[in-house]
């Protein structure tokens, strides 16, 4: 209870400066905390008992506002909990708030929120990364030890990297998507953000597993991720894409990111990992293929926001017909980036363009998967930076959507191939901005990713660094 009060006070205190949250769930949290205090002994085996948790605001929470950072859902109260949320609560976690994010998870900077941007705690004039920006900020600013985000093209890993925390995107199908507001259903996955690999391992163990409500969730048993954290990476084969091994500038990589990435590889090697070069020839076109697929799926998924069953309905008059109500509700309810993606998705799926765009992108997706199948013959994990640049200034890219999309250059291929990937802090720029190392693993091999991240964390000071309060 006291912990809960302190957390809520700290969130309120930092909210004007960081904008990490859209909704603070104080009453709900205090009631849960009181309940936990009463059952402390009988519930002592619950792995997350009393742990305060932030949820990205695109995860449904029964009776609590779920906005997806959109005006169109400003007054929406979900009638059920997302499966991942229900599992966290059953494990004893206390939900303290709904974290800020880009509208419907569409963005790389958290600037596309109808409720204002979230700010990077390391430099509040800079973006925290997106789309799960608020979740990363809440962990980085020590407001909560654990948050959930969702990752469609990097939306857990990118803000984790830019805010100096760990972010894990599980294998497609590892975590149920039931109750996650759909953006691009073949790419979306819920994942934890935490300070350490151990905390993320604990959280993943709780939220992973089959759910009859999500037919794409896997029946595979959930391993004990914590027991995988041996601290030992001897013999681990770390694949380095040849383009990064040879010429980093070709990849548009910031020199300081390159330096931190090389240093991280050196650390892993010193601990006994073996570096091998791998070829990922299709990665150069991963971004265009990703955006075509994501926007196509988004245009279809967001057709449900029509002002009928839930969400905003534009006020009208007696002359209104159904279609003009649809149009005005969507026009007033959605922000600019969401409209852009819906329109592009509509275009690439429209008659005459389907083969050239959507089908082509799905074929490229097959090539990306083949690249990784090949790479995992020689390597156990593939390493690359999480983000090509450190956090940029708020407003710097808002007028140039294409430039914004390039922030995802290293993250989208894991989603395209359905593979798990983790971002772990690996240093700072001279200006004091965090840098992330990304490790991509074989399908359902989160254990190896977490083992490597944990071993790396133990040898380096980065995960323990905190922004000045």
């Amino acid at each position: 209870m006291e912990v809960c009060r302190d957390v809520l006070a700290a969130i309120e205190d930092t909210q004007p400066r960081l904008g990490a949250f859209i909704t603070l769930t104080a009453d709900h949290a205090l009631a849960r905390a009181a309940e936990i205090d009463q059952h402390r002994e009988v519930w002592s085996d619950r792995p997350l008992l009393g742990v305060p948790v932030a949820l990205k605001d695109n995860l449904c929470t029964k009776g609590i506002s779920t906005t997806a950072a959109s005006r169109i859902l400003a007054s929406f109260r979900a009638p059920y909990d997302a499966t991942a949320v229900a599992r966290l609560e059953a494990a004893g976690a206390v939900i303290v708030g709904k974290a800020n994010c880009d509208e419907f998870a569409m963005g790389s900077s958290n600037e596309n929120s109808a409720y204002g941007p979230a700010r990077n705690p390391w430099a509040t004039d800079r973006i925290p990364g997106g789309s799960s920006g608020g979740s990363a900020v809440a962990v980085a600013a020590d407001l909560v030890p654990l948050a959930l985000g969702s990752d469609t093209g990097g939306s857990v890993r990118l803000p984790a990297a830019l805010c100096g925390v760990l972010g894990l995107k599980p294998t497609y199908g590892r975590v149920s998507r039931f109750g996650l507001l759909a953006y691009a259903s073949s790419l979306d996955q819920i994942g934890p953000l935490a300070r350490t690999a151990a905390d993320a391992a604990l959280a993943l163990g709780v939220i992973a597993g089959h759910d009859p409500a999500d037919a794409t969730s896997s029946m595979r048993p959930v391993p004990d991720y914590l027991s995988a954290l041996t601290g030992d990476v001897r013999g681990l084969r770390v694949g380095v894409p040849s383009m990064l091994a040879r010429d980093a500038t070709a990849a548009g990589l910031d020199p300081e990111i390159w330096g931190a990435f090389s240093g991280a590889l050196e650390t892993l090697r010193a601990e006994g990992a073996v570096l091998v070069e791998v070829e990922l020839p299709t990665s150069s076109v991963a971004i265009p293929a990703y955006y075509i697929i994501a926007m196509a799926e988004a245009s279809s998924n967001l057709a449900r926001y029509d002002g009928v069953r839930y969400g905003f309905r534009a006020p009208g008059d007696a002359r209104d017909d159904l279609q003009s109500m649809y149009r005005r509700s969507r026009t007033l309810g959605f922000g600019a980036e969401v409209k852009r993606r819906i329109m592009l998705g509509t275009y690439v799926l429209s008659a005459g363009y389907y083969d050239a765009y959507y089908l082509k992108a799905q074929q490229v997706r097959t090539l990306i998967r083949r690249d990784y199948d090949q790479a995992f013959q020689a390597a156990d994990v593939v390493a690359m930076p999480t983000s090509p640049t450190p956090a940029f200034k708020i407003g710097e890219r808002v007028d140039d959507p294409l430039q914004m999309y390039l922030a995802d250059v290293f993250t989208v291929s894991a989603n395209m191939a359905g593979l798990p990937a983790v971002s772990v802090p690996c240093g700072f720029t001279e200006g004091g901005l965090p840098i992330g190392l990304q490790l991509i693993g074989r399908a359902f091999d989160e254990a190896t990713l977490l083992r490597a991240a944990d071993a790396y964390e133990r040898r380096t000071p980065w995960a323990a660094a905190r922004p000045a309060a």
Partner: protein
Amino acid sequence: MSAPLTRAEVEAIAALAQLELSEVELDLFARQLADILTYVDQLKEVDTSGVPPTISVSADHDGDRPDEVRPSLDRRAALENAPEAAQEAGLFKVPRVL
């Protein structure tokens, strides 16, 4: 594949997507969508002949759940978020269709 989009084309896409754009948005989106489409055109350079499309990355499909009647969201809860509903009749209300 992606000559610059005309305002009429952008308007047609918006209509398909059930959106209305202002004059300013029409110009802005015509430019931005054309930029993005030009960028994604680099996919044309990739040889995908004979490559099957990836529709799903689900590693395994463990079968459908049994076709059994189970409790679902009750009607009152389903109507609670509707901007306009007739709770007693159990209906969503919409403006006239014709």
